[in-house]
């Protein structure tokens, strides 16, 4: 019951925003904010239940799982829903002021809510084809948001994004077709039950195709080319949402498919995932080092961090999953923080070119502090949250004996520190040669930044909470049979 509400509420808010249309800007914001607030409350309720080891299911239309579609929330999905609704709320709050010049376009609010609906639908579903449908909802809401400003750059980024992700979703659909051909069912738990009994060559191909589809969502290396164009082109709150959460939805899907559906032991591709993860780390960091466009810089940094999560997923041990889940949580907070902070800077000086900035420390001390917190956290400096998740990933690498990836990961971490310090120096220190366009940054933009910075600090200072949560989640992910039993209810042909 509560699970279907998690999908209906943002959907209703989105439709209501279309109904309100041009007549009232304030009402549109109020509807979005209220619905995301309700979502946060419901999601934390679900999270509280599932973290105790329970799995909530909901059967749509009262059809038993392999016949109808069901929604499943284990602790990982609950964490994802919580993240999506929290960061969604902060982004909506942020866009009140940031998008004021474009407030006349009523589609913005509803598209934002539709994309939140798509993400929540993707992480809650227990059915493979339904996952495709909601991924598609998420995509189709993201495309116009990327091209929102309607300039040449935005349109090109949007076109590229659409073409690549359509190819990816076609691959995903082909994978679904192969899975259906091999097992005769679409329910993930049911597939897990069948594949647990017999693996097979066909299912390996299906797995690769499904991972290609999801790898594009999360921008793993050969499929990352859209991200550095799409994320900078979008309005800043949307960049924060895309980089912070949408990319993670792809990673969530990978966890669900690799670990729950196929079972990691039956998967011969751990090595490939590790190699791709390392390549993603290196390429993302390498390109980030030479960017002058600040949002492009952050986008490449996202790619690099996604590489860390992919690496941890490829290891496949429990500590690897812990590291991956913890880094998903941390990176969502850190990257949204950085994008929103940079958005404040752009709002004030009206350019994205880092070489034209400089000496803003005095005018924007708060933003400087927030940027420093985010940058140091991503680089993995001890009292901040990124340190612990990266430490977990290193430990997992070490335990499993992957020493070369470990060395590369640590080296790139130092590189990350270097390029964030470079960016900090270029933006906030040095000579001030720019005149500020507007007065103070509005409060509705500062609050999300402060909240996220405090969250980063809190998780860093009190790592025990995060570590115990991720431990429970990873245990639940590895307990495949419990998932299957809970969803199918033991009564299955």
């Amino acid at each position, binding site marked *: 019951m509560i699970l279907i509400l998690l999908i209906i509420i943002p959907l209703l808010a989105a439709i209501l925003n279309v109904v309100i249309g041009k007549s009232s800007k304030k009402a549109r914001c109020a509807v979005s904010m209220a619905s995301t607030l309700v979502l946060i409350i419901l999601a934390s309720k679900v999270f509280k239940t599932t973290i105790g080891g329970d799995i909530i299911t909901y059967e749509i239309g009262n059809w038993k799982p392999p016949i109808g579609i069901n929604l499943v929330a284990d602790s990982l999905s609950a964490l994802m829903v919580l993240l999506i609704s929290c960061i969604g709320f902060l982004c909506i709050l942020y866009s009140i002021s940031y998008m004021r010049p474009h407030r006349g376009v009523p589609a913005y609010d509803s598209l934002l809510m539709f994309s939140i609906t798509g993400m929540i639908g993707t992480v809650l579903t227990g059915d493979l084809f339904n996952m495709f449908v909601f991924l598609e909802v998420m995509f189709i809401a993201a495309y*116009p948001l990327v*091209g929102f400003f309607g300039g040449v750059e935005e349109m090109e980024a949007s076109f590229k994004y659409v073409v690549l992700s359509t190819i990816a979703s076609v691959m995903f659909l082909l994978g679904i077709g192969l899975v259906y051909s091999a097992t005769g069912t679409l329910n993930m738990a049911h597939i897990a039950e069948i594949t647990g009994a017999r693996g097979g060559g066909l299912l390996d191909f299906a797995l690769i195709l499904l991972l290609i589809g999801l790898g594009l969502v999360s921008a793993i290396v050969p499929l990352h080319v859209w991200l550095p164009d799409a994320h900078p082109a979008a309005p800043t709150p949307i960049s924060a949402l895309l980089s912070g959460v949408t990319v993670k939805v792809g990673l969530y899907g990978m966890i669900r498919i690799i670990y729950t559906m196929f079972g990691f032991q039956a998967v011969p591709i751990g090595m490939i995932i590790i190699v791709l993860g390392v390549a993603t780390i290196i390429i993302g960091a390498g390109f980030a080092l030479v960017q002058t466009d600040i949002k492009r810089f952050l986008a490449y940094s996202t790619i690099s961090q996604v590489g860390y999560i992919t690496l941890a997923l490829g290891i496949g041990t429990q500590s690897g999953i812990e590291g991956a889940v913890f880094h998903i949580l941390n990176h969502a907070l850190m990257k949204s923080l950085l994008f929103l902070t940079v958005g404040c800077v752009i709002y004030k000086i009206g350019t994205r070119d880092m070489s034209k900035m400089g000496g803003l420390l005095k005018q924007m001390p708060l933003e400087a502090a927030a940027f420093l917190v985010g940058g140091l956290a991503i680089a993995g400096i001890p009292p901040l949250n990124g340190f612990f998740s990266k430490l977990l990933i290193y430990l997992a690498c070490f335990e499993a004996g992957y020493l070369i990836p470990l060395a590369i990961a640590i080296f790139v971490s130092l590189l990350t520190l270097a390029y964030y310090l470079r960016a900090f120096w270029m933006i906030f220190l040095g000579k001030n040669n720019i005149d500020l366009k507007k007065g103070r940054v509005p409060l509705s933009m500062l609050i999300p930044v402060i909240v996220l910075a405090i969250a980063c600090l809190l998780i860093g200072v009190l790592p025990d909470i995060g570590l115990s949560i991720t431990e429970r989640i990873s245990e639940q992910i590895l307990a495949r049979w419990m998932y299957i039993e809970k969803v199918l209810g033991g009564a299955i042909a």
Partner: protein
Amino acid sequence: MDLLMGFLFIVIIASAIAAVELKDLLAAALALGACGFFIGVVFFLMMAPDLAIVQFVVETLTLFVLVIAITRTHRRSARSEPVRIRAVLGVIVICIFLLFSFFVIPLMTEFGSPDQRVSQHYIDRGIEETGSENLVTSVLLDYRAYDTLGEIIVLFVSVLAVSLILREKPKGGG
């Protein structure tokens, strides 16, 4: 029927190649439409009349939209590409094709005898459980109505998106 199907596939692939290679964009769009229509006929032969009807009407609409778009963009013909790129990429694509046809298709269940583990339920009990004689409709609007909800959301959002993209006088910004 095999013969008919084989003939249709040849026509489909020929029109697909025509859609790719024709210089004139309008002619290529027509070739694409022909490809879609013949696929509709194949659907009909594969005992999927619902799909055939939907494919026909959607293809007509796609063709209509494409023709409007091409006439609105004035330029009618595509330029050709350097031969070297075409050759290299062509070889890669053929490799993918061969890889799949040699390794994947033999692994699949024989065409015409699928594993109906779940759908046997729809076939056996569909009519009495949903009251719909058309089993595709019963799957679409009852057993898996939630998918259909997702689908109409996609449709709704895409038209919203088109309205956003085609709006006049966009404002620049950062």
